[in-house]
């Protein structure tokens, strides 16, 4: 009865068994920070088209160790290499961390909802990221920068724990160097030698240059950070109905069968991870929901 | 080495035995002046902690004395409690108990023969190291061990500390089909067990015999596993109930342990050698034949040949298991009913390492008021030391390492179960 992965069809939801990972080879691996790394993955044995929308995620499988949801952090749309930026915090991500170029992982995806980049056309776009939350926002940033003329001001506000936790530091400098994007980075704490900002990411909101009444905000980071950021954005004039967040819950299947990622009436794997704030705010307000 | 000089053979941690023991042999010139086989196992006070517990808990608590022979503890415990309550368990339930016990014998003997004892004869530090040169023998031993574990799992729920034994019988008895499912496995195990006998019979055995007083259970028809009469090679023939009238635990000055002795007669030996030598006539034909082919007579006095006897007993246990399974008809109820009452009862069964004696005194509501447990290893302790006295002297010319190893081997002849040796402390604890 053995069927090989070749018969299983593409990894995505389009066909075959949604629970069966397809083998992808690590084409490139970059250490981003002491606990964050980025993998570029290519389908094993063939071109195997892969396309995603900004904000979606894949399930990555480390052989024998398990599977975790990981947001795509590379350019959206059709690509040859799928990019994931991963923080090593648990058993599976630690196993993924040890992979080298040429090693193989399993991949299912892409799954979930996307940042509404089309809806944001014509508006200022404010991206607020906290910690590893910059990774799921990067595809959106790539998109708006590649379609620069369709958007108003583009602002990236990024908070990290310490200077050494800053993701994509070199790329941030490149973005910062652009005349058509505003980038601010702030860290929670720093030792001398850091000449950047210190404080929380919410404090960047009132300083940033955008028109709050014609802006769309995408926020990604720990849930508390998002809650306070949305509050700061609202205080500044960005209405919750124009603010999107990306949520995270335990996830086993990514296709709505396992039940783990429920948040009230929604399944984060299917209805999320990207939600309009006003739709989930009442849910996030309930303790232990 | 000059005459009259002193030296000491010291083994701080005895390996390839269960539990923690140590050995010191002191020599002056060619003479042994002191032998101490010490138990360094921390005391766990089982007899004390049983007080105040319900009688039904005795099998589960006492099984925790030893992870290698938990069934032996469960069996001696239930027999002693049933004796106190005036309950007899026989027919298919008794057969199932023997079957479960066979599983433990197979598992324990296979482990000891292949992984723990054989490396001594073949010069390896461990069974695992031996596997590099003798992969077939080690794999066979592991498979045989696994067959025993399979029996334990099916009948007892798990290999270590099985859960299915209770006073009066079992919690649940298997359907015929469940036992039939392991028959094939056991048939293969019988061939493997016979092959193990042939394999170990070719080992080199030191020329060493002693005129032991052997003590074992004796049953009218069965090779002893469960039983109510104890016999010795010097004419003892008593009911298990009278055990404490004939056996005593002596305080030996140079040891931290109590030594079990036959009153007025001294050390005695229990275990495979004793069982075999006292019950050769009760062995199944296939086991008898295997013994003969391995060069064993009906009595074996060389403790180093215990490895062969263990292999023969493995054949016996597998064969017996097959016979029990073939004849098995599930009983109407998994256990006979028991009603608590005041009383005292004794139970004794043949653990892989020899007789294991339990006595309980119960209150009217079934609460345990007093418990006494005499495990096989404490009974053999004096004999082990005596073996060493005699064994070392003719071998004093051996190098330190060689002599140490041989002393260890002499102890491993008894497959000592040191965690079991709970009884070396005299306790005087009164609990409400």
């Amino acid at each position: 009865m053995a069927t090989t992965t070749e018969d299983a069809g593409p990894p995505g939801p389009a066909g075959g068994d949604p629970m069966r990972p397809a083998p992808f080879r690590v084409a490139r691996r970059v250490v981003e920070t002491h606990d964050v790394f980025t993998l570029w993955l290519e389908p094993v044995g063939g071109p195997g088209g892969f396309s995603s929308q900004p904000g979606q995620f894949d399930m990555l499988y480390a052989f024998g160790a398990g599977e975790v949801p990981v947001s795509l952090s590379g350019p959206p749309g059709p690509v040859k290499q799928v990019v994931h930026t991963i923080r090593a915090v648990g058993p599976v991500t630690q196993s993924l961390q040890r992979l080298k170029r040429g090693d193989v992982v399993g991949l299912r995806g892409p799954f979930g909802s996307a940042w509404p980049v089309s809806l944001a056309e014509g508006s200022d776009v404010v991206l607020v990221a906290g910690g590893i939350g910059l990774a799921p926002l990067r595809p959106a940033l790539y998109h708006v920068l590649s379609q620069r003329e369709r958007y108003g001001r583009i602002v990236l506000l990024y908070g990290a724990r310490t200077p050494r936790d800053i993701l994509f530091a070199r790329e941030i400098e490149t973005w910062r160097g652009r005349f058509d994007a505003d980038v601010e980075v702030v860290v929670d704490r720093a030792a001398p030698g850091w000449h950047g900002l210190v404080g929380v990411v919410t404090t960047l909101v009132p300083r940033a240059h955008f028109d709050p009444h014609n802006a769309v905000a995408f926020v990604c980071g720990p849930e508390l950070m998002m809650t306070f950021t949305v509050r700061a954005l609202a205080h500044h004039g960005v209405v919750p109905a124009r603010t999107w967040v990306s949520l995270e819950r335990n996830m086993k299947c990514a296709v709505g069968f396992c039940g783990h990622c429920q948040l009230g009436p929604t399944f984060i794997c299917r209805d999320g991870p990207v939600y309009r704030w006003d739709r989930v705010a009442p849910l996030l307000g309930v303790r232990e929901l | 080495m000059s005459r009259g000089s002193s030296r000491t053979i010291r083994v701080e941690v005895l390996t390839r035995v269960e539990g923690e023991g140590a050995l010191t042999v002191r020599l002056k010139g060619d003479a042994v002046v002191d032998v101490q086989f010490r138990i360094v196992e921390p005391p766990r006070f089982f007899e004390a902690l049983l007080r105040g517990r319900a009688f039904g808990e005795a099998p589960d608590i006492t099984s925790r004395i030893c992870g290698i022979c938990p069934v032996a503890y469960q069996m001696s415990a239930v027999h002693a409690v049933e004796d106190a309550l005036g309950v007899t368990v026989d027919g298919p339930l008794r057969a199932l108990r023997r079957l479960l016990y066979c599983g433990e014998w197979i598992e324990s003997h296979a482990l000891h023969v292949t992984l723990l004892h054989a490396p001594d004869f073949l010069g390896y530090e461990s069974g695992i190291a031996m596997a590099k040169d003798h992969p077939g023998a080690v794999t066979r031993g592991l498979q045989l061990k696994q067959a025993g574990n399979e029996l334990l799992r099916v009948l007892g729920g798990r290999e270590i500390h099985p859960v299915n034994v209770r006073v009066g019988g079992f919690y649940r008895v298997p359907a015929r089909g469940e036992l039939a499912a392991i028959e094939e496995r056991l048939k293969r195990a019988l061939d493997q067990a016979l092959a193990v006998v042939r394999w170990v019979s070719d080992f080199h055995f030191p020329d060493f015999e002693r005129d032991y007083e052997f003590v074992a259970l004796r049953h009218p028809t069965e090779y002893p596993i469960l039983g109510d009469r104890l016999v010795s090679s010097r004419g003892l023939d008593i009911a298990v109930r009278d055990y404490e009238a004939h056996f005593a635990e002596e305080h030996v000055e140079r040891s931290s342990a109590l030594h079990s002795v036959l009153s007025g007669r001294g050390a005695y030996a229990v275990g495979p050698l004793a069982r075999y030598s006292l019950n050769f006539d009760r062995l199944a034909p296939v086991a008898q034949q295997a013994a003969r082919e391995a060069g064993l007579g009906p009595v074996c006095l060389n403790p180093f040949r215990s490895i062969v006897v263990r292999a023969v007993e493995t054949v016996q246990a597998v064969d017996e298991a097959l016979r029990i399974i073939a004849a098995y008809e599930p009983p109407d109820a998994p256990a006979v009913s028991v009603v608590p009452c005041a009383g005292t009862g004794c139970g004794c069964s043949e653990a892989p390492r020899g007789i294991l004696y339990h006595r309980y005194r119960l209150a009217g509501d079934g609460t345990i008021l007093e418990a006494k447990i005499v495990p096989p290893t404490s009974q053999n302790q004096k004999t082990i030391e005596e073996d060493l006295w005699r064994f070392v002297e003719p071998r004093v010319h051996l190098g330190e390492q060689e002599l140490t190893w041989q002393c260890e081997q002499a102890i491993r002849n008894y497959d000592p179960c040191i965690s079991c040796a709970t009884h070396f402390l005299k306790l005087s604890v009164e609990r409400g």
Partner: protein
Amino acid sequence: MQTLEPILAQIPLFQGMRPEHLKLIAGCASNARFDAGQFIGRQGEPADKFWIVRQGRVALEIHAPGRGALTIMTVAENEVLGWSWLLAPHQWHFDAYALTATRAIALDGKCLRGKFASDHELGYELMSRFSQLIVQRLEATNLQLLDLYGDHD
């Protein structure tokens, strides 16, 4: 110093204040410049001023033995540096250190406090605005303490 009044009116802290109050405040204001690396205030020193940063960036630091200097927060354009002037014992809680060359408007605390004595309404107004500021800082501090992006296993 009258020239500072329209500038003050643009500062978020003073937005919407009554002109007579702004005038009084401007009376206590002066321009200040700091070089990069210059301390603006030191922990324990008397705090009799506060600043509105006009350009540049100032770090608030605390020195912990064995851990060196730790930056607690930074103050950038149009933000307020210092509120110790408002409350007894009027001492700096932290070191304030110019990360870059910084221009600021300095406001003399003693001068302001003096004006409060005769104009309670001004005192109330400024006190309310600083309370708001302090609450915001407190919330930010709480978030920093939560170590949002840290490992909480």
